[in-house]
């Protein structure tokens, strides 16, 4: 029975990411850094974006373009995105200068970088589905760019239906999965020690 794929998967999971690593109650001293506060702030902003986005999806543009409550939630969604990018870029800059891919942590760095790219795509489609003059301007400028590189017929920025579905379904799913894997990798590999840390002073290196 131990040959079953479920048992293999369970054994691999328990070996590589036991519950003590997944939900730790202690961290090395060097985790006490503002750079990680900005990582958590990024996650908080993402949670607010998803929460406000779900409300917008249920209520629709006739609500969020006209009513006071709708305009408030619409603005909450928009400004959460602005803060999300500021927090994420500060976290990314910090991790770049820490060379956070050291110690077998390439997957942690790479998932973070790919999450940044996926966020740009998600935000871009969001700008295109505002259904106002701003989105009309952006889409008509962008179509020339996408046509010039030959993908305009496949990724049609002036197609509101396509952009809306990509923005509310496909891209958030991709971004959510990458972000989830990124956090799992942080738990699995641990946070990268400082560059000048002596081996003996670094706890849980490469755990």
């Amino acid at each position, binding site marked *: 029975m131990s040959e079953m794929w479920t048992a293999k998967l369970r054994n691999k999971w328990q070996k590589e990411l036991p519950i003590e690593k997944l939900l730790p109650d202690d961290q090395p*001293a060097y985790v*006490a*850094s*503002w750079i990680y*506060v*900005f990582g958590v702030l990024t996650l908080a902003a993402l949670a607010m974006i998803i929460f406000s986005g779900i409300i917008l999806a249920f209520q629709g543009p006739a609500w969020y373009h006209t009513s006071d409550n709708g305009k408030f939630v619409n603005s909450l969604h928009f400004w959460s995105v602005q803060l999300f990018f500021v927090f994420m870029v*500060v976290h990314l800059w*910090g991790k770049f200068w820490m060379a956070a891919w050291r110690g077998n942590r390439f997957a942690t760095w790479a998932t973070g970088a790919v999450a940044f790219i996926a966020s740009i795509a998600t935000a871009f489609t969001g700008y295109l589905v505002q259904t106002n003059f701003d989105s009309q301007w952006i889409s008509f400028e962008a179509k020339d760019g996408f046509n010039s590189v030959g993908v305009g017929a496949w990724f049609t920025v002036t197609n509101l239906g396509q952009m809306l579905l990509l923005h509310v379904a496909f891209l958030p799913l991709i971004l959510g999965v990458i972000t989830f894997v990124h956090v799992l990798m942080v738990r699995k590999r641990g946070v990268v020690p400082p560059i000048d840390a002596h081996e003996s002073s670094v706890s849980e290196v490469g755990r």
Partner: protein
Amino acid sequence: MTGWIADFMNHPATYLKSGWFQISVTNLVVILLMLTIFACAVLIPFPKDKDGHKK
């Protein structure tokens, strides 16, 4: 949108231009703000508790 915010926002962006390089004042302000926040995140010491441990 009403009041001073409308007056502040309802006009075309101001651009700075030097040869081939062009940037809106708004984008420049946002970039400088982010660099300032990053510098603060690196330079401001993380709070410590009474025993000297980082919180």
